[in-house]
């Protein structure tokens, strides 16, 4: 080792070593697809998205270089910082588009809720690590509280999409930490029954004047519009109607790159961000959509594989939760764009335009790479 220290090849090796080639290949495909779709959906943003991708890959590399133990030692400070910032947002935050999400810290504006997407699973994984081998009911309750505080803060901003993702991140850790099925199954049942009753009694519940406890009017409208997009074809239903038209008109093989009429005549709203999947489905058809699903499955499979070989309970929980979060992004986004889930502001992971979300996601991939590098069977 010592005699090779100054060898140029060694530098390259040091640079490349943290990288997992499988995840990198998947990233390359997804970011490449993002660039291609951006050229179609919003060409003036393609350049920026390329820069975003570069920055995000750097973040990924940096995270991949951090050993898992160093990462876990950051769990508590990051979590506390996140909560403090969220409180700051609630008190001094800037309002844009009816929601208070941004905090001006002098140099730039930041969105602390984004930080919680990483800090939350990290914190809970760290917590369960402390209780290794003896996680009891009390620990799950503590975890629940650790989860509930930031989620509540984000819900009140209000930001349903992000709070959903943060909550999901925490719940995944709790799930993989071994929360009893006896508790999970009833909750899932209640959830399914609740959703089912909304679908069945949607018409009555969506009458004006009916208050949905805990949800804002616009959130209620989103659910109602999903149940019946034709209720408001020019207003709130327009997004869903137009994106399903885009997807459906794409057919088996699509209309061809740059040929999507829904995309290029601006019928698809937010086509470079949350609705970019309808651009893919319109221009590349069912084939393109299934290929994307396949790439995501590869990513998730790789993520779980890394989790199974993770060196410790905390890294195991962290890796599996991050992987499950990727799934949540992908499923909620494609579900909403294709009209089976309500419109919540969740981007299509690694593809939608936007630097912050991309950096967060790539930090997650970097953490996976770091855990992979320190896997149990590793002789590194």
């Amino acid at each position: 080792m010592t005699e090779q220290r100054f060898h140029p090849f060694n530098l390259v090796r040091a640079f490349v070593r943290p990288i997992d080639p499988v995840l990198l290949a998947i990233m390359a495909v997804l970011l490449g697809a993002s660039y291609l779709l951006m050229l179609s959906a919003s060409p003036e943003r393609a350049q920026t998205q390329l820069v975003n991708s570069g920055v995000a890959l750097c973040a990924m590399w940096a995270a991949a270089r951090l050993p898992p133990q160093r990462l876990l030692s950051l769990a508590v400070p990051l979590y506390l910082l996140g909560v403090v910032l969220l409180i700051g947002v609630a008190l001094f935050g800037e309002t844009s588009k009816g929601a208070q999400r941004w905090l001006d810290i002098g140099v730039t504006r930041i969105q602390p809720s984004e930080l919680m997407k990483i800090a939350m699973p990290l914190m809970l994984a760290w917590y369960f690590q402390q209780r290794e081998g003896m996680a009891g009911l009390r620990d799950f309750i503590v975890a629940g509280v650790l989860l509930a505080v930031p989620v509540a803060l984000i819900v009140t901003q209000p930001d349903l999409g992000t709070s959903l993702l943060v909550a999901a991140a925490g719940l995944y850790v709790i799930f993989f930490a071994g929360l009893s099925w006896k508790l999970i199954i009833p909750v899932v049942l209640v959830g399914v029954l609740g959703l089912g009753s909304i679908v069945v009694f949607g018409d009555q519940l969506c009458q004006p004047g009916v208050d949905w406890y805990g949800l804002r009017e616009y959130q209620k409208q989103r659910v109602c519009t999903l149940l019946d997009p034709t209720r408001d074809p020019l207003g709130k239903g327009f997004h869903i109607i137009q994106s399903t038209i885009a997807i459906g008109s794409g057919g088996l093989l699509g209309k061809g790159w740059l040929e999507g009429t829904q995309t290029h005549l601006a019928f698809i709203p937010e086509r470079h961000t949350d609705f970019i999947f309808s651009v893919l489905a319109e221009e590349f058809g069912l084939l393109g959509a299934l290929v994307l699903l396949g790439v995501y499955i590869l990513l998730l499979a790789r993520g779980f594989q890394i989790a199974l070989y993770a060196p410790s309970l905390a890294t195991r929980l962290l890796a599996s939760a991050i992987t499950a979060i990727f799934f949540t992004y992908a499923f909620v986004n494609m579900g909403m764009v294709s009209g089976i889930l309500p419109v919540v502001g969740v981007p299509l992971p690694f593809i939608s335009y936007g630097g912050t979300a991309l950096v967060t996601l790539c930090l997650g991939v970097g953490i996976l790479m770091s855990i992979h590098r320190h896997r149990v069977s590793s002789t590194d």
Partner: protein
Amino acid sequence: MTEFRSPDQEFQGFRRRVVVAMLFILACFALLGGRFYYLQVERHEYFHTRAEDNRIALLPVVPNRGTIVDRNGVLLARNYAAYTLEINPSRVRKLDETIDALAEFIDIQPRDRRRFRKILEESRNFESVPIRTRLSDEEVARFVAQRFRFPGVEVQARLFRDYPLGGTGSHMIGYIGRINQRDQQRIEERGESANYRGSDYIGKAGLELSYERELHGTTGFEQVEVNAGGRAVRLLAREPATPGNDLELTLDIELQKVAEAAFGERRGALVAIDPNDGGVLALVSVPTFDPNLFVDGISTQDWQALNDSPDHPLLNRAIYSAYPPGSTFKPFMALAGLESGKRSIEQRMPDPGFFIYGGHRFMDHRARGTVNMHESIVVSSNTYYYQLANDLGIDGIAGFMRQFGFGSRTGIDVPGEAEGVLPSPEWKRSRFRTPEQQRWYGGETISVGIGQGYNAYTPLQLAHALATLANGGKVFRPHLVRHVVDSRSGERRLIEPEPLRQIPFKARHVEAVRKAMVDVNKSGTGARAFAGAPYEVGGKTGTAQVFSLRGQRYVEGKVAERLRDHSVYIAFAPAHNPSIAMAVLVENGGFGSQSAAPIARQVLDYHLLGRKPGQPAGEDEEAEESQ
């Protein structure tokens, strides 16, 4: 919840959960895949259509409206292009503020604002509404420089309808106006909605209304690709509009002008028809109005001024007002006497100056001893016709007069014609309610014989009947349009050159009546008006009673102007081969020889000699030679 688990047990548990999670994920993705399959394969056709509907819009291309010219090609109705400033109400939230802002650099009068409001209310869709028409080039330039401030406001080049002669012939030419909800309904009932997509105007009166189908043309379409904002981004296909067909009239607009001028300030009507084909040479109703006022929606003041005027300028007297024909009825009565065999041409009848029927004495102006048919027309004897009416009986009169079209619409090609009244016992029965009113009295027949009583005909009917008399019994449908000129092929379609029917008069009888009418203007009641005329003209004066004096003597000066008799005159010329037959009516003009006959003289001088009133006599000779 195992408090004491070995790391290995725990790892096994974790592995199970990863497997469960992966299965759940695959199930969710399968759900998505199924949804994609449903949208993209099962319902592809539907969504494909929806996307095409989104993308492709059909924009109407409004055809140019056909023009109207007189028989010599003088333009009576034309189109010209001008810029309008239009506001799309669906894209402008604060209309008043926007208009105020526009008014800072474009002249917008309160009148323009009122019209804008009116059009907005009547608007049938959410298309753009003009706030100012006929912008100057400078105004267009000023707006273009400020355009960015006014989304939803645009300058459009549009075709406008213009009636260059203003009031001349306005009742007959008519006008177009903006399509209102009632018009829209009518369009829908006729199933022409597609052809009126994009059209803002429709014929509202006169020829513009009756020939709407010819003039409008066929709307074309542009198939364009539109973006979500509704803006056309690419032209895909184009089906050009077919312009409306042009109308060439039988009308001589110069004759019309001469006739209108001859009335001066008086109210009345004049209808001149070519007896050879029924073509209308002049159709005058005075006072006239300016049809240009109506094109963009008439203002309230203009409307009130027209509508409230005691002279009723909007009334088309030539075809809608019915007047008693007075003595102009006599030539037709005379022919009825000859044709029925109740009179012969030379038969002399006693004329003591009155006629007694049922104990009532029907008075004449003077006693003449005896008169024959010829003299009865020349001097306008009443007694001769009292007796004749009595001999013919009301059914005989009505039956004969019906052939001339008295009391029924002539079918002229401008809308709004009145039926008039051809009195008969049947008419009385349908007109009145109580049996007492419905009864026909023999005395009423006597009045009908001299063109008074219930007789009421439009000037058009009178001219039409005279034309039929003048040409020996050929009945044409009077018409204003000679040719419809096909805009594509240039083919000129002739309108109604064939007679509807021939009334089988004996030529000898017709000739005798015509000869008497010629002598009216040589030695009779029209002699003064036609003194020195270098052509032979047949005519008959008449006086239509407005107000019954119940046996008192009528003294003109003592009767209020509006209650004075109407002056009527009919004439055809040249006598032996008539090219014009006309009826003139001057409301409250007194005797026929007083007001109406001089007007007829001016019209005939122009028609036959090309001489306009006030022109030096030097041109007469030339014209005379060409006769």
